[in-house]
């Protein structure tokens, strides 16, 4: 059975689906509830992997943008676009899970806490990349400028994280509650579930990128066919 391009992706997605189901079982059934925060602590198994996913996405965007500027090969630009789109969704989830975790535990949706500020700015960076690319007239320059934004955005990410920490140190937000020390209470099962969720969400991220990449490739193919037809 010749593995063609398309059904390789189907296998990959089905495989990810299975892994996701196992992961859900682990999160909701297998891992014990953490004594300090109760059930809400299970958001950790979504928040951390998604944060790791959006970080990975911005790195992929940066790497493929540099390669595109260096090699001028179309393939790198497609990877950058797909990584940015899935990265935007992961960034939105990171922001949402962060806020919905803060609400029950700290009593407020938004505090000056470093991680929340950082995830908001990262999310805006992704949106800026996608909007700028959509509003720029089509062509080689559009790809080149998006690559430049990708690189600047990626270089900015650690700097923003650093600034958010400095900002939090200068203006400590009123976090009254055990969540502030959630990581001081890690038992064996919690670490295992967390690692497994990180693996699952990396698989989800790569399958999204993979799918978006093939879609982009086919779009280019259609453009080529139309050009040859006229």
């Amino acid at each position, binding site marked *: 059975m010749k593995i063609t391009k398309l059904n390789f992706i189907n296998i990959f997605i089905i495989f990810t689906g299975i892994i996701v189901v196992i992961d859900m079982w682990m999160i909701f059934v297998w891992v014990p509830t953490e004594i300090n925060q109760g059930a809400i602590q299970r958001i950790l198994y979504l928040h951390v992997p998604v944060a790791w996913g959006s970080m990975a996405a911005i790195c992929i965007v940066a790497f493929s943008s540099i390669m595109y500027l260096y090699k001028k090969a179309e393939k790198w630009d497609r990877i950058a676009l797909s990584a940015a789109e899935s990265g935007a969704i992961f960034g939105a989830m990171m922001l949402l899970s962060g806020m919905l975790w803060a609400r029950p535990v700290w009593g407020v949706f938004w505090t000056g806490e470093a991680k929340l500020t950082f995830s908001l700015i990262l999310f*805006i960076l992704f949106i*800026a990349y996608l*909007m700028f690319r959509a509003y720029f007239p089509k062509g080689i320059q559009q790809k080149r400028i998006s690559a430049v934004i990708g690189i600047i*955005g990626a*270089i900015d990410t650690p700097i923003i994280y650093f600034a958010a920490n400095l900002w939090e140190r*200068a203006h400590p937000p009123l976090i009254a509650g055990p969540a502030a020390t959630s990581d001081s209470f890690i038992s064996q099962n919690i670490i295992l579930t967390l690692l497994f969720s990180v693996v699952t969400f990396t698989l989800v991220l790569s399958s999204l990128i993979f799918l978006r990449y093939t879609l982009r490739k086919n779009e280019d193919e259609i453009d080529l066919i139309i050009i040859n037809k006229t």
Partner: protein
Amino acid sequence: MNPFKTIWNIAKRDLILELRRKEVLFTILGFSTLVLSIFVFSIDVNTKETQKIVPAIYWSAIIFSFTIALGRRFSIEIENGAFEALILSPISKDIIFFGKFTSNFILVLISSVFALPITSILFNINILKIEYLLLAIIISFGLSTLGTFFAIMSIKVRAREVMLSLVFFPAVTPLLFAGVDCMDKIIQNNNFSDIQSWIFFVLFYDAIFFLISLLLFDHILQE
């Protein structure tokens, strides 16, 4: 042809152009004062609480007015192709970036220095100290590096002002944090060691983005 002379030539001509057109000059000076006065109307100024948010108001006024000025800065120059004359002339692209950067740097510096006395009058805090000048210089450096880069990059994009600010603000937030926090500390006249880490951070930020813009500048000029 001494490159520093060309850079000064480009910057000088840009500034003369802005003086004649007065459009960007008004945005830089007028708009920031407008933002400051809006805050003065909306909050009762003399309680101790509001003193804490004065740095935030000051720096957001500077950044807003600079973003709008950036949107206007290159639009006319591009329409009749004057920017292309620069690209076609026998100077390397880095010198063009230096020239445009210097003129933007001077404009932002004027705006931030001009807004200092206004803020101290409106919010009656004494902020006319030398440290503010140093702070204004290093932060304006960072602002104009990325500002020039993004302005030139977003010439051809539709809805240019919105797109420019959408890309510019997240990239500049570290500077906003640094500016607000340092100013806050200087107002409570803490010693230098508190803001030392911020000063280091801003210098690092300026250097990194100045070099990155230099390296990537060729790619955004090529049509």
